């Protein structure tokens, strides 16, 4: 009898030679291409969805400051302004502060091109209130002098446009960021929100249209949402425009609804192609193992046990492939975020659950195809054809 032990020998696998991990681990040349296809599929799908989701994510972040306020302005007719103000004064939701502002638009950059951003013209007292309300803080410089072409922007806006203290935000020769005088940046705010303001007097004197905007702030976000809802409902079909964060969210969702429908079709096509490819690969691998299956069935392994084993093996490969795919996508998106997106102030979420949820049909479809392929191969399988060498 042998006294040597098999322990410690690198070849010795398991007392269970038919465990699902044995074949994939010992045939890396065969299991790795399968895993790689899944990894690439997950990477591709999660990447596409993440990049697409980064657009609404950017909308929510870039205009996130509007969560803290509700805006309203007459539709072109300033004579309606006092009535509009009075309407809000009678609101059932307590208003902490009413701000009269002017606004002008300038462009910030996004991954889909320039986006308009609001430069608020407000008094310094109102600016102080808004800055604190939004969760920002003056980090560098000072507030604008009343009536002077000066602006304060948040760090996010500065990073996005590559501007710093003393740089020009609006200028006479820039069609898209126009002002009759060079509007210089005199202050930078710190904090996560995007925000920009100048003096009310400067915009009133130099910018068209001569229409004021009312900004209302409530004591907290929950009251603000109530005010948003009340304003939208009570001013429906009136001579006023209402600006609220929920309406921005709704508009964004509506804009991307069709885009995501198209994405669903693209993902479905991708999954179909990948699944067909995997089914063919699995079929080839099964053909290469037909002698093994014939032998095992001949010596007494039931067909159902062999089918189960083949499915367990496929599940293991698919699960590992999917997990590696998710990990790779997460790593790649993190790199994209830190190298490409963050420095420009763009947003992308490497941990976006929706992106990974979109890749779930990949393992499910592949497993279904694998199970169907295995069942098809075993349907009329005769082990004697193998042991008699009728099948090579």
């Amino acid at each position, binding site marked *: 009898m*042998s006294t040597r032990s*098999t322990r410690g020998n690198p070849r010795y696998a398991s007392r269970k*030679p038919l465990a699902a991990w044995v*074949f994939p681990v010992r045939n890396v040349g065969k299991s790795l291409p399968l895993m790689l296809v899944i990894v690439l599929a997950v990477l591709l799908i999660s990447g596409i969805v993440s990049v697409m989701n980064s657009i609404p994510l950017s909308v929510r972040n870039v205009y996130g400051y509007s969560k803290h306020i509700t805006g309203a302005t007459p539709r072109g007719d300033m004579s309606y302004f006092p009535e509009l103000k009075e309407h809000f004064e009678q609101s059932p939701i307590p208003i902490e502060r009413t701000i009269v502002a002017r606004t002008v638009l300038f462009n910030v950059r996004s991954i889909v091109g320039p986006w308009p951003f609001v430069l608020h013209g407000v008094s310094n007292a109102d600016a102080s209130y808004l800055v604190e309300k939004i969760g920002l803080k003056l980090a560098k410089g000072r507030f604008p002098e009343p009536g002077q072409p000066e602006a304060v922007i948040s760090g996010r806006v500065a990073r996005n446009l590559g501007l710093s203290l003393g740089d020009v935000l609006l200028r006479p020769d820039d069609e898209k960021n126009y002002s009759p005088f060079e509007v210089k940046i005199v202050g930078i705010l710190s904090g996560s929100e995007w925000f920009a303001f100048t003096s009310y007097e400067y915009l009133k004197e130099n910018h068209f249209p001569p229409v004021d905007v009312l900004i209302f702030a409530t004591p907290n976000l929950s009251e603000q949402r109530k005010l948003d809802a009340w304003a939208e409902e009570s001013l429906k079909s009136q001579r006023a425009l209402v600006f609220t964060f929920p309406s921005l969210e709704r508009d964004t969702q509506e804009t991307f609804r069709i885009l995501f429908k198209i994405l669903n079709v693209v993902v479905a096509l991708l999954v179909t192609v990948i699944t067909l490819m995997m089914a063919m690969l699995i079929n080839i691998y099964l053909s290469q193992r037909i002698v093994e299956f014939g032998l*095992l*069935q001949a*010596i007494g392994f039931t067909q159902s046990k062999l089918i189960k084993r083949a499915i367990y093996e496929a599940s293991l490969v698919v699960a590992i492939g999917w997990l590696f795919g998710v990990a790779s996508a997460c790593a790649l998106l993190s790199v994209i975020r830190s190298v490409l997106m963050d420095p420009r102030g763009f947003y992308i979420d490497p941990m976006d659950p929706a992106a990974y949820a979109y890749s779930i049909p990949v393992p499910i479809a592949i497993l279904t195809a694998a199970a169907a392929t295995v069942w098809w191969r075993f349907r009329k399988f005769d082990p004697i054809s193998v*042991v*008699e060498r009728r099948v090579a």
Partner: protein
Amino acid sequence: MIVAKSASLVYFDHGREIHACRDIDMQVSDNEFVGILGPSGSGKSSLLYLLSGLKNSTSGDVSFRGQSYKSLSDQERSNLRLREFGFVFQQPYLVGYLTALENVLLVDNSSSDSVTRAESLLDSLGLGDRMNRMPSELSGGEKQRVCVARAIMSSPSVVFADEPTASLDHSGGLAVVSLLRQHHRGAVVMVTHDPSMLEDADRIFTIAEGVASPVHSK
């Protein structure tokens, strides 16, 4: 133990009716070595498949310990083969990505002693230093000895050997038969075209055109 009563096996090949076995009457008793001798195409492998339950008879009946194979489902027949029978085929079929030891453990890895028993078997078959080798690293004779070890690992009631020496030279073939007899306490049913492999057989049948006839009894 195994009883065949008027068992026949008919199959169709390209629309032609082939009588692989005709009205076979045969018994295999416990611990008996039964040899089936016949030329190529005589139906001896088909007879082995009938006796081992790999194929069902098209008429007549084959039973093991009184249980007709026809009364068993596919799964029950598979379980019977795994539990009660061992197989050695003409070609030394091994699972290519498993070591010799693991190939033996395929049929019985139910207890913690299985590894020790498999090691002991391989050792006694002269493969003590080859048990952790892959099949591609073994010679044809070594592979067939691993197949013998696998066939007897679960101490089956019967070992069915289908031309187990065909892929070996004469001395290698004799060695395999001898090892099989030496290490297996149950019955052996061996099919061969070489009469010299059946010198130790308790009974020998010849088969020609699917008809089996007893020719020798110890």
